[in-house]
């Protein structure tokens, strides 16, 4: 593995982890939005508060990690992607800002009215953010970001691959969140909540699975390079995602929520990795390869040092955070 590919792989791992953990946080917005009135939705909204409250900021940092790895490791491609995709990125950014702020405000809102306002902002922005980030992925994967300068401001992200990318991103987020929240509700003995979440999760999962495979048809025409990769090198991953996704639905259906979390994570990770492996060796598809996009070697080595340090300094406390907050019984308040 060359230095450039190693850094690109580290960058891409960041994307996968962000899609899984940040994605699950965003996805909870879907259930929050559809939880019903303040009274009826209180139990679910409290559950969402408890399960993403302590971890969302840490999960959010994966996005920063991705951005920094990208602009440091592959600067020109970063500049042209940001330049071309300024609109969806700004909309995603708007969603990120509103989501984080509204979530924090809601937790300490003095009245149910204010909480409902912040909650609606939190939930709505949780859905738009993954959509626009998905369109960005679609723009890159379909070869619409030029190696240098700026591509088309609109058609770069308003095209079949981007739209499907956006829908799949929202779907996978909601799917993951559904599985995690259902498991949480079950673990904390809220059978009524678990049952209603279970049904919605099954619906979201089925819809997302159909979308992932339906997307292959327009992608064949719209993004031939990606399509070649998806049906060639990345085909095993697409198969794995199909199998584990189906297994998740079965496990949720028979109320085996704990193992369903594992298969759901594998399914989504496979879809995202499928995109990455599918567009390899391109950094910006059809425009510039990973090797050509890379910055100075000394900087790439520096980034790998950072990645190694992250393994030492970040992963152990991160695992501790998840174990501590996601396995303990929520306190009574």
């Amino acid at each position, binding site marked *: 593995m060359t230095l450039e590919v190693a850094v690109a792989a580290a960058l891409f791992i960041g994307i996968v982890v962000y899609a899984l953990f940040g994605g699950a946080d965003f996805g909870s917005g879907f259930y929050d939005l559809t939880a019903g009135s*303040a*009274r009826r939705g*209180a139990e679910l*909204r*409290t559950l969402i*508060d408890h399960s993403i*409250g*302590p971890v969302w*900021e*840490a999960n959010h*940092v994966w*996005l*920063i990690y991705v*951005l*920094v790895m990208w*602009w*440091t490791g*592959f*600067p*020109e491609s*970063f*500049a*042209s992607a*940001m*330049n071309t995709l300024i609109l969806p*990125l700004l909309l995603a*950014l*708007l969603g*990120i*800002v*509103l989501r*984080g*702020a*509204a979530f*924090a405000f*809601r937790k*300490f*809102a*003095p*009245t*149910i*009215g*204010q*909480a409902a306002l912040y909650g609606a902002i939190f939930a709505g922005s949780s859905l738009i953010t993954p959509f626009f980030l998905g369109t960005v992925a679609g723009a890159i994967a379909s070869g619409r970001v030029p190696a*240098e300068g*700026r591509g088309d401001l609109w058609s770069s992200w308003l095209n079949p691959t981007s739209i499907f990318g956006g829908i799949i991103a929202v779907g996978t987020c909601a799917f993951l969140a559904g599985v995690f929240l259902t498991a949480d509700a079950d673990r904390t003995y809220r059978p009524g909540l678990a049952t209603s979440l279970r049904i919605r999760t099954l619906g979201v999962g089925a819809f997302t699975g159909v979308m992932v495979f339906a997307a292959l048809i327009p992608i064949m025409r719209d993004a031939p390079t990606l399509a070649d990769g998806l049906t060639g090198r990345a085909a095993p991953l697409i198969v794995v995602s199909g199998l584990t996704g189906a297994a998740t639905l079965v496990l949720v259906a028979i109320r085996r929520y704990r193992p369903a979390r594992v298969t759901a994570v594998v399914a989504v990770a496979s879809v995202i990795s499928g995109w990455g492996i599918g567009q390899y060796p391109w950094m910006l598809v059809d425009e510039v390869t990973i090797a050509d996009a890379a*910055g*100075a070697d*000394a*900087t790439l080595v*520096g*980034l790998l040092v950072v990645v190694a340090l992250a393994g030492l*300094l*970040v992963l152990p*406390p991160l695992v*501790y*955070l998840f174990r*501590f907050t996601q396995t303990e019984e929520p306190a*009574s*308040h």
Partner: protein
Amino acid sequence: MHAIQVLAAEDPAGLLAARQQMALSLGWHIILAAFGVAWPAMILVMHWRGVYRNDDVALNLAKRWAKVAAVLFAIGAVSGTVLSFEMGLLWPGLMGPYGDVLGLPFAFEGLSFFVEAIFLGLYLYGWGRMPPKRHLLMLVPMALAGIVGSYCVIAVNAWMNIPVGFRIEDGQVVDVQPWAVLFNPAAVLQFAHMWVAAYMVVGFIVAGVYAAGMLRGRRDRHHRLGFTVPFVFATVGALVQPFIGHILGLRIAEVQPAKLAAFELALETEKPSPLRLGGLLIDGEVRYAIDIPRLGSLIARNSFTEPVQGLETIPVADRPPINITHLAFQSMVGIGTLLFLAVLLFWFARWRRRDLLDNRWALRAAVAAGPLAVIAMEAGWIATEVGRQPWVVYDYLRTPDAASDNPQIWILLMATFVLYTGLTIGAVVVLRSMARRWRAGEEDLPSPYGPQDQGSVTTS
């Protein structure tokens, strides 16, 4: 007017808007960043008192501060993300060619942000769920990560002022040495300046909150302790800051003479240089200034005779905007000096057994110190950033060449202004409601959706 029109004709369409956009989002974020850097240490001291001295008042203060920190750090996390995006969205001409030169410090900053976010999560969630002593320790990595993270960001800014770690060959950036950027010699002092500024900002603001409470007659131990701990931090900061600033300023004469000339409003090289207080550059002449002979040389050059190099030596195209830089710089120095004297007076009086907390004017001054410290910090950033113009990377890359050619950035600027106004209002409303409920005796501030608490939610 004429000069502005000429500039506008040559510059890319999005330049001015991009600069305002960056200034707004950075100026807003930096206040929250200061809380991220400085507050964990103050909470640590308070929490430590609570745990190790069995001080319930201190423990309660730490608990409340943690809840406020949860709100502030959340907005800080997202407004910091805005900056990450803007690096590329607004300045593709910087990030494209120089991304691999300036990126490594940002990668380390990302690392510390990670650590900070993880331990913030553990700390906030840990109340009542973790053994007290271990819980207290969660603050230590948070505080350290805040320090490392701000060093890294400052390292990049110092590099923009005094670039190192690359060469230009045939218009290409070559021979990139990212570690030289991370450990560039200019970073340490500049970091010290900002780090101490963060302690002043947070210390004075938090102390000011309790001073305001005392003004309203709330004179219990809760308020005294809530005032004293952050005020001690702010005091140390206010006392050392003038010296750090002075040493930092001495370097500018050599590395950025144009900036120093703008700071000092030195149109011509005078030997020795006067200290020019106030004043504006109007039609090429200095008006409304008070000159103190020789003091300029003494302060800026540490010498009785060495001159401040005047603007006449700088090509017109390489001069920064003079008035903004000068006024911002002097506001910072003026406020810094004022705060230095104020804390001296406070502790001198305390030493003479006179408690100024009994004096309403002293309390009002303590309340004003927070906003003043914020103004000083913002003014300092305006001085150094505007004073670096017209360069992004000093002597290498001009700001117009870094900006994107996007006239729509004005719309973005308007939208950001509306958004940040909304966020500010939201934060103020929420924080005030928390304080109100605390005073009313509610301690835990349960989620409004907490089912069993729904009855107790007031609609005041």
